[in-house]
């Protein structure tokens, strides 16, 4: 090997090591730039596949009706999602009224977003959506649909964001189980088995929890956490008592493999 090549290799390796010692913020900044560069291609691809998928539908309906229908569907989903959050607020409000202690709680603002790319990698469960910091999105914002929780934002670019799905092992959510006092931590799996794609594990339950299939699991809304309380995560499929605790397997409330329209909870109105 030539001396010049050896020097080049050494310089590159030193540079790579220096890069790897950077903090998470500069790394996310670089990823945000990269995301902005590739997103026009992703958006074009998403639009093309959407067009191809809706060819048959366009032949059956008028364009104006399609647009109106889309707007109404979006509005309906937004209202259903808001309604779900309000139900929890109502319950909390009743509890507080009973105790004669009033505390004002804000109503959440939902930003509609569209999935432009999914399953970008082999080991992580993420999707990309067409909303970024220009729309008011920040990292660690909850993402949901009218049927339940999708995940949370991680890296946010100008007009795009990465959403970490509930089915990823690193997405951990404090939960409470309907009709019981049980609380636990829900998270996805590192590698989902062929027969169990997209299941969620609910851990740190008490051994005697004895959860029944069909029981609903909601976000607990811990203080200082990412997720507000009352968002549906899924339903219990199975429960087993382990040596020290109980563990349940949940069926996600949202079909994360096919979700296309989501809402980002961008903050209080």
């Amino acid at each position, binding site marked *: 090997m030539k001396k010049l090549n050896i020097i080049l*290799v050494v310089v*590159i*390796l030193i540079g790579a090591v220096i890069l790897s010692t950077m903090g998470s913020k500069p790394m996310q900044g670089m990823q945000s730039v*990269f995301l902005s560069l590739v997103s026009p291609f992703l958006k074009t691809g998403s639009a093309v596949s959407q067009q191809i998928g809706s060819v048959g539908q366009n032949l059956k309906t008028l364009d104006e009706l399609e647009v109106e229908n889309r707007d109404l569907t979006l509005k309906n989903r937004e209202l259903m999602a808001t309604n779900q959050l309000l139900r929890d607020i109502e319950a909390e409000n009743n509890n507080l009224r009973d105790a004669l202690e009033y505390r004002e709680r804000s109503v959440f603002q939902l930003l509609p977003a569209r999935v432009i790319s999914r399953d970008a990698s082999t080991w992580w469960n993420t999707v990309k959506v067409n909303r970024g910091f220009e729309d008011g999105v920040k990292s660690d914002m909850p993402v949901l649909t009218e049927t339940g929780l999708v995940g949370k934002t991680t890296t946010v670019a100008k007009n795009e964001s990465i959403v970490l799905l509930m089915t990823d092992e*690193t997405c951990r959510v404090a939960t409470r189980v309907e009709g019981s006092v049980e609380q636990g931590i829900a998270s996805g799996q*590192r590698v989902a088995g062929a027969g169990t794609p997209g299941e969620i594990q609910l851990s740190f339950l008490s051994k005697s929890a004895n959860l029944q299939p069909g029981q609903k699991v909601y976000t607990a809304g811990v203080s200082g956490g990412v997720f507000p309380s009352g968002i549906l995560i899924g339903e219990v499929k199975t429960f087993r008592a382990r040596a020290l605790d109980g563990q349940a397997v949940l069926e996600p409330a949202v079909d994360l493999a096919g979700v296309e329209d989501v809402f980002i909870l961008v903050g209080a109105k």
Partner: protein
Amino acid sequence: MKTLVGLVVLFLAIFLSFPIQEMIPPIAVLHGARLLLVPALFCYGAVALPTPAMLGLAVFTGLLTDLAYLHVVSGQVEIAVGWSIVFFVILGLVANGLQPAFKRGHWWIPIPVTLVGTSLFLLMQFGMISLRREGFFFNEVVMWRVLGAGFLSAIVALVLHPIAVWSGRFIGDSSFGRRTILAKP
């Protein structure tokens, strides 16, 4: 000049491969293995390019790969930017060492290099996230995702050779067969 043109073409192709491979869904029958275009393009370039150009390609590919797969949750980075650069430099040096055989007409050399390189890359990613998280495990699904992606990328590498030979016509490289736009005998 041909090397420079080939390098620019590879830079563009690798950049465009990131959004393209994102649009290709995982293969269900291979337990969710993905078709990765980037390692196939890199391995082809690494075998065909001179060493300094290969190193430039390794830095470019590694940096973009790190940014594409960067996973930050609550301020914690799983695989830091820089590791893929190290991986692609090492893989590139090994692949570059096989260049004399490639120039002698063994056009198939990038195919096994791609198979091994892609599988090793995914194995490295899985090993690193396993170290970060709670324990290491290896099951059938992991094996399929690692080896399945390797085989799929090897098929891409098989298709790349005729494309590179065909592309050579447009930049004045009239000798086909064992010569491509990148490799000069």
